[in-house]
């Protein structure tokens, strides 16, 4: 049988070292392949070459035996390659119908677009993915999971040539477990129809749950392609990072009860309804919940990025709402979700990104002193092992994991009393993720009260002393001690009260 996709000796550099070094791979029709590797290992480069964004330095690709003309988006399209890119590539002010039409056109067009027909078609395509939302709402107003579904629906929409290979770049980065499962069901159905599926993921449980085979990239080189069967998660992690990852004992993680630092009572938002919670000094409290549970509202509402009702107190003093500056002055720090939109100043230096919170520390004699500022920043780049370790590089020069460390450094530098982390390791590779977890542990050990909101339940188990489960805007359950288990947490978020049985 001819493979659905063959890549031969593909190499690419951007004027420096090779970011992709003679990669070879082939995928059979109907196969589901996971592509894994740390940030900067070359996964995205490979995908972007196949999509025609980058022209490779050398190498070739074939789709069902037909040579792919590299460097041309239309050529990939014509041979049946379909993509869901990391940023999804939706146009925010267009609705679902128009977004799908961006690739596929309007099939009903005969002198005029028959909108009713188009909407029906769009609703049907989304229903197949298990989604039902107003297709006339602009994409920018949709929840993250709905946006992902829309991007997948667009990739799979019928075109002039049938889809041969579906490539998903971190499709579940913004999806909680239950919704990711729906996406997997779709991926399996797509594969069953004879289309090859390749997906990138940092979540190894997804690799084992969905893929038949896995390709590992490290530092631009293809390490191995092998079947998933007979592999353990630890094997895979070692292949990805090229060393053993140490395990941290988390079961017995119990904070000694110290004074309450963060006290939230009656917190309400769009979905959140009358939520009370306490975080003690030195304690790490997690918040889990599916999209729509109010999980994503907690951190911005607390810090003052969005409006809220209810009261938040730090050491007994009330934090006013809608005042991030006051929250900050009172000792709260926030690492927000979606780094690029909410935290990074991408064209600014690492120095500027870190000292943007209270640059005035280095203000002496009416002048911002850049020497002491650089020394200050260098200290933090060292402590967080940011690479490259140069305070004058811009944020755009860094990989996602390192960017996230810089954002974390911004707040650790303030030695906050309360640190709120919203999806702290979203789109971060395993090495950096483990570093970030350690830094959070250290901050807590020094007495910081930490609140972690995350869709990554293993992360919550790894980090937290207690995990609160949000369902429909309320706290539905709490896990700690021996009950801490990511499967139980996942089950609790979608509403099965399995936990009680354990």
């Amino acid at each position, binding site marked *: 049988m001819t493979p659905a996709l063959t890549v031969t000796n593909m190499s690419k550099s951007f004027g*420096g070292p090779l970011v992709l070094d003679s990669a070879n791979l082939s995928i059979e029709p109907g196969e589901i392949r996971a592509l894994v590797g740390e940030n900067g290992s070359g996964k995205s480069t490979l995908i972007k070459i196949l999509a025609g964004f980058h022209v490779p330095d050398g190498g070739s690709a074939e789709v069902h035996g037909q040579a792919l003309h590299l460097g041309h988006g239309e050529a990939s399209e014509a041979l049946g390659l379909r993509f869901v890119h990391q940023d999804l590539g939706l146009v925010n002010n267009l609705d679902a119908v128009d977004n799908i039409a961006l690739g596929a056109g309007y099939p009903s067009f005969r002198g005029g677009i028959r909108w009713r027909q188009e909407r029906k078609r769009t609703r049907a395509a989304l229903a197949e993915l298990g989604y039902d939302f107003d297709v006339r709402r602009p994409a920018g107003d949709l929840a993250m999971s709905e946006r992902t579904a829309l991007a997948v629906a667009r990739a799979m929409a019928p075109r002039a040539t049938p889809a041969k290979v579906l490539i998903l770049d971190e499709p579940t980065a913004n999806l909680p477990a239950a919704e990711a499962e729906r996406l997997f069901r779709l991926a399996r159905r797509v594969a069953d129809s004879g289309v090859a599926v390749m997906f990138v993921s940092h979540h190894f449980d997804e690799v084992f749950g969905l893929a038949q085979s896995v390709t590992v990239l490290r530092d631009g080189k293809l390490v191995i392609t092998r079947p998933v069967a007979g592999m353990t998660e630890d094997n895979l992690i070692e292949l990805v990072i090229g060393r053993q990852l140490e395990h941290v004992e988390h079961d017995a993680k119990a904070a000694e009860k110290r004074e309450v630092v963060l006290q939230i009572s009656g917190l309400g938002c769009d979905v959140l309804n009358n939520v009370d919670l306490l975080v003690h000094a030195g304690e790490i409290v997690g918040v889990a919940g599916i999209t729509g549970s109010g999980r994503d509202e907690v951190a911005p509402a607390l810090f003052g990025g969005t409006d809220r009702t209810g009261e938040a107190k730090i050491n007994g003093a009330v934090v006013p709402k809608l005042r991030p500056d006051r929250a900050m002055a009172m000792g709260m720090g926030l690492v927000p979700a979606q780094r690029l*939109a909410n935290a990074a*100043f991408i064209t600014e230096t690492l120095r500027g990104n870190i000292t943007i919170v209270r640059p005035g520390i280095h203000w002496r004699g*009416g002048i911002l002193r850049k020497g002491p500022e650089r020394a200050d920043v260098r200290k933090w780049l060292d402590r967080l092992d940011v*690479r490259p370790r140069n305070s004058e590089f811009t944020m755009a020069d860094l990989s996602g994991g390192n960017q996230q460390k810089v954002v974390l450094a911004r707040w650790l530098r303030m030695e906050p009393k309360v640190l709120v982390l919203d999806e702290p390791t979203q789109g971060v590779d395993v090495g950096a993720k483990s570093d970030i977890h350690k830094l959070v542990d250290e901050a807590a050990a020094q007495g910081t009260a930490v609140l972690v909101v995350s869709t990554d339940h293993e992360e919550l188990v790894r980090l937290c002393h207690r995990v609160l489960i949000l369902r429909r805007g309320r706290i539905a359950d709490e896990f700690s001690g021996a009950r801490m288990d990511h499967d139980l947490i996942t089950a609790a978020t979608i509403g099965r009260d399995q936990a009680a049985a354990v």
Partner: protein
Amino acid sequence: MTVNKQTTEPSVESKAAGHRAPAGRRIAVVLGLDRFSGLYVWAILILIFSLWVPSTFDTATNFRIIAGSQAITAMVAMGLIVPVAAGAYDLSIGGTVGMAVCIVVWFQANHHGYGLGIVVSLAFGLLVGLVNGFIVNVLNVDSFIGTLGMSSILIALTTWVTGGFQVANGISPHFTAIGQRQLLSLPLPVFYMVVLALILWWLLEYTPVGRYLYSIGGNPQAAKLAGIRVARIKTGAFLVSGVVAAFAGVILAAQLGSSGPDPGSAYLLPAFSAVFLGATQILPGRVNVLGCLIAIFLLATGVKGLQLAGAPGYITGLFNGAALIIAVALAARAYASHRKA
């Protein structure tokens, strides 16, 4: 992380090497072509015109004329940098210049003295900034649209106050001295311009407020979540552009000794051109004071040289427009290739 230091170090090195530019660009960097290309072009222009029309171009008087004629535009443009750094346009600066001219002339024509006129002009500039801040931050109108509307209102006000005529009676010679007297054989406005440049350079590069301005321009949402009071800083930026435009207006009135029905509008577009052209110089990719000054004097030198060589009057607009488009296009190319590397 438990990684052996020795294994990590080479990878850091190789990553750093990835940022090293190819040979051609390295030479360009050594010569400062990426940051100082404007200075080179300026030098070349001066050389060309010195050879082409030596008798008129290459004279001290000519340099004095260029310096003096551009001081007002330069001040208006430098004030504009502040809101643009924070990602906000201020299209009302031309109208503010005009209104300030009109106020200070009106006070003298009505025998209230120029001192009070100057104070009221500057206060009016602040008021315009405050209203702009209100329109943009409280009414949530996009700055481009909000200040466009404000500009139209200001021009209407100026026409109303002057009655649509040239007003030139009762102007004190002490007042015109502010704009016309010379020091070290340079007109006084050149010195005002230099002092203002120093103040704004300090504000933008050596104060926390400068950091906040650029970060708001870079990513307003991230700035807000870093505890920066975005609305307050933006309003402050409009206050600066407003009061600087009013100050430039006062100096313009002193130079002219009169007020027409719309003396300020002609300064709006050159100021914007200079700010964006200036963003390709000194600190490439961001609007900055020095780059803006270089842009203004480069354009003025080119135009003056061409005029002395016998080019017709419309050469000013032609030259300025073409230079703006070409320079910004080249900078965008350089920026794109930097990003790829």
